[in-house]
């Protein structure tokens, strides 16, 4: 009944002018096979799905099943990423490949990495790439650090969504600095999504409770013991966290406060 309550669209969100219901975006890497990828994505309820852009394996192309046969662009909004790029130029090139591949769809998840070990983004290259991709008509969802000033600069440069990391990609450490995520949410006019570092369901709920518009994750689902069940958990957690945010949590108190009336006890 509660789940149905949100089904009625009263809490949809807008990304680049398009309306979405699910606030969980999922990646498609690290799964056992494409069947599991599909099942987990389906269980997650996600409407937007990230993919990477890579060379076709020429000899095996005919036999090998294709990711987009399992996750049809007719059903899902495909969000190609620029993972692996280290400069603005590389990222722009991959974004153009992705747009051609996806019949002109302008969405791109911009990711320009500045450190191979932490996979932290390079803020300067990311800002440069954002400016140029926006100029080329891309709708840029940009992976960034949790630096509130950089996030604002990216939004001002025309990014359609700002996506700070919670923790290093694939680490599962959860939201290392909730204070910064909250500052970014307060400052940015565009949707703020937590993009990396979520490890379990409560992390996703916390991201939403901080006021994020949505959460993007991959490893936390794909590397769970049971990815399909974890996908359900994440779907529920994002809904839970969003509702808690909208419901307005109680103020924490340092002392106790009885739930049962103190008076009228039998003598």
């Amino acid at each position, binding site marked *: 009944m509660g789940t149905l309550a949100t089904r009625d669209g009263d809490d949809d969100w807008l990304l680049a002018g398009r309306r979405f219901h699910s606030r969980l975006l999922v*990646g*498609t*890497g*690290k*799964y056992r096979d*494409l069947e599991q*990828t599909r099942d987990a994505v389906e269980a997650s309820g996600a409407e937007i799905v*990230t*993919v*990477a*852009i*890579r*060379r*076709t394996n*020429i000899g095996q*192309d*005919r036999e090998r099943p*294709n*990711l*987009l*046969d399992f996750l049809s*662009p007719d059903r899902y909004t*495909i969000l*190609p*990423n620029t*993972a692996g790029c280290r400069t603005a130029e590389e990222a722009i*090139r991959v974004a*153009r*490949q*992705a*747009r*051609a*591949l*996806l*019949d002109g769809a302008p969405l791109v998840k911009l990711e320009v990495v500045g450190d191979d070990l932490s996979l932290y983004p390079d803020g300067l290259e990311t800002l440069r790439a954002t400016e140029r991709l926006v100029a080329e008509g891309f709708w840029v969802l940009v992976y960034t650090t949790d630096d509130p000033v950089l996030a604002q600069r990216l939004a001002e440069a025309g990014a359609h969504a700002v996506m700070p990391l919670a923790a290093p*990609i*694939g680490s599962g450490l959860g939201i290392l600095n909730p204070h910064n995520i909250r500052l970014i949410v307060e400052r940015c006019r565009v949707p703020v999504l937590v993009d*990396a570092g979520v490890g379990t369901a409560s992390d996703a709920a916390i991201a939403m409770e901080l006021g994020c518009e949505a959460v*993007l*994750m*991959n*490893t936390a689902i*794909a590397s769970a013991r049971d990815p399909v069940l974890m996908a359900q958990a994440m779907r529920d957690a994002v809904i839970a966290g969003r509702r808690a945010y909208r419901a307005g949590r109680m103020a924490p108190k340092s002392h106790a406060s009885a739930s049962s009336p103190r008076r009228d006890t039998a003598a």
Partner: protein
Amino acid sequence: MRIIVNGEPREVNAALTVAGLIDVLALGPGKRAIECNGRVIPKSEYPEHQLGEGDVVEVIQAVGGG
């Protein structure tokens, strides 16, 4: 003539078009992009775009990623 496809040198007929290369490579029907010398070739140009000696071609698809 000699071109580079996805990093591998490959001997092909002269005057091959991108459309022709797709046949030669026996690529499947899935979604892809083709880039030649760093520039994406629009699908509409596949039939006429002629490859030249030494061209660097990338055949690109979507794969699992996050």
